[in-house]
Each structure stands twice: as structure tokens, then as C-alpha cells.
């Protein structure tokens, strides 16, 4: 007869350490290149303008909703393979003597950083501000564009 020591099954009573590593595993399962960007749009961090990212054969296109701003108030820069859109919306002085009935609009500084999945030609980046939407077109570098590779059959 074998006398083996009774081992309490590990999972019956998981310690906190195991729970957090389980959470990390689940996070990794769902992580995409965009989870970091999604995390920056938390409600509590103030004004985070909504943005969309598209990709075609030659470019990345980023649209950011920034209504009621002046072109000079928006700053677009490229750094370390990430696009940064920032600026400040100043409160209008003409409303100072008025009584605010409803204030849902955000004012002040904002910043969004978009990590780009492939390298772009920094000198060819274009930005346009129309109807309150900022459109940034980032052309991919030649190496980053999809290439047809011929398959040789011997």
C-alpha cells in the first residue's frame, strides 16, 4: 500500500497571486496593437478627442474629432514611430459675464498618441483640418508597403 501525502488541490483555494497572473494571461489573450491606444481614452483623464485609424496600401489615415478649434491651436508631431496630436482649447472670454446653463464641452489641453504599426515617411505626412475633423495622412515608407513576391517553381 502506498502512503502518499495528501496534496490539497491548488485551484480549490487560489491565492491572490494566482488570480492576478490569471488576469494577466487573459489580458495577453485579448491584447491587440490597439489596446494601449484604447486605454488612453478613459473617461477620467479629461478631454480625449475621439479618433479613427485606417490603413490602405500606401498610407495610414488618422481622423480626430476636434470641433470648434483654430488651426493654430492644434499640434501634430511624429516621434519614435508614433503620431502625437495635442493642443489646447481656450475658453472664450465673451462668455464670462454670462450664466452657464449647461457645460458639457471640454476645454483645456488634450493629447492623443497613436502608435503606428509600420514606419512612415515623416517628411511626407499631411494634415488637414476641415468641419472640425483633423485628418492626418501618413505615407508608408517603401519598405513598409505590401509587396508581391513571385514564387518560383523549379
Amino acid at each position, binding site marked *: 500500500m502506498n502512503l502518499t501525502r495528501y496534496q490539497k488541490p491548488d485551484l480549490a483555494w487560489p491565492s491572490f497571486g494566482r488570480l492576478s497572473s490569471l488576469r494577466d494571461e487573459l489580458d495577453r489573450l485579448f491584447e491587440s496593437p*490597439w489596446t494601449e*491606444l*484604447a486605454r488612453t*481614452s478613459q473617461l477620467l483623464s479629461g478631454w480625449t478627442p*475621439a*479618433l*479613427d*485609424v*485606417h*490603413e*490602405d*496600401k500606401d*498610407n*495610414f*489615415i488618422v*481622423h480626430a*474629432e*476636434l*470641433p*470648434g*478649434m483654430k488651426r493654430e491651436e492644434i499640434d501634430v508631431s511624429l516621434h519614435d514611430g508614433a503620431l502625437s496630436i495635442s493642443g489646447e482649447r481656450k475658453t472664450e472670454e465673451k*462668455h464670462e*459675464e*454670462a*450664466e*452657464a*446653463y*449647461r*457645460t*458639457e*464641452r*471640454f476645454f483645456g489641453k488634450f493629447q492623443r498618441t497613436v502608435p503606428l*504599426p509600420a514606419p512612415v515617411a515623416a517628411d511626407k505626412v499631411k494634415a488637414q*483640418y*476641415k*468641419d*472640425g*475633423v483633423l485628418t492626418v495622412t501618413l505615407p508608408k515608407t517603401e519598405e513598409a508597403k505590401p509587396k508581391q513576391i513571385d514564387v518560383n517553381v523549379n
Partner: protein
Amino acid sequence: MKAIVQAEPKAAAERTEPQEFVTPVVNIFETRDGYALEAEMPGVNKAGLEITLEGNEITIMGRRAAEAVNGELLFRERSVADYRRVFELDPAIDTGRISAKMEQGLLTLALPKSERVKPRKITVSD
């Protein structure tokens, strides 16, 4: 036998599907002379704007201008829905003098109060 046959469902063209709208964010201010309303509708220009007044209710509707984007969507936060919001007006507002301005996706409505309603001094004659 005929009684078992159910009434035919309305043809797809007759069924009206309620359109989903997104509520634009607003700031409303009041001064002695009137109200100022600012509504954020990025992606909307003057052509897509529709402001209707019915009784003492004002409806602001903004249709997004078509954006030509080719390519694959990688990340989305913006809505595709059009904007709509309804407001009940203070009866003191002179609806005939309401004016609107649209600039970079921001609608600014000026809603002046009627002259009669404004506080004014009454001089006492001897």
C-alpha cells in the same frame, strides 16, 4: 383554411426603421439679452445642418459630410451616426430673431430675448 393564413408582414420598404442618432455635446449660456447655445458636431458642415422650430421646441440635426476613406479600419472611436438634439425654449426668446453660425463643426445659436421681456426702467413723471 383561410383563417389560418396570417396577415402578410409589411413590405420592407414600408417598415420605417428608427434611425440611431448621437447626441451632440452642448454649452448653453444665458445673459440679460438672450441665450447662446454651442453644439459640437464634428464632420458636419452648413449643408448638412437642419434646424427646425416647432412651437417652443427647437430641433438641431446634423448630417455628417461623406468622408472618402479607402482602406481598412484599424481602430474606431468615432461614431458614424448623425447628430440630433431637441431643446425646449424659454418663452422669453424671440424666435423670429434666432440666428445660427457653423464653423469647424461647431454650431453657435444666438437666441435673443424679446425686447418686452427685458428688465427696463420706468421713469416716473412728476
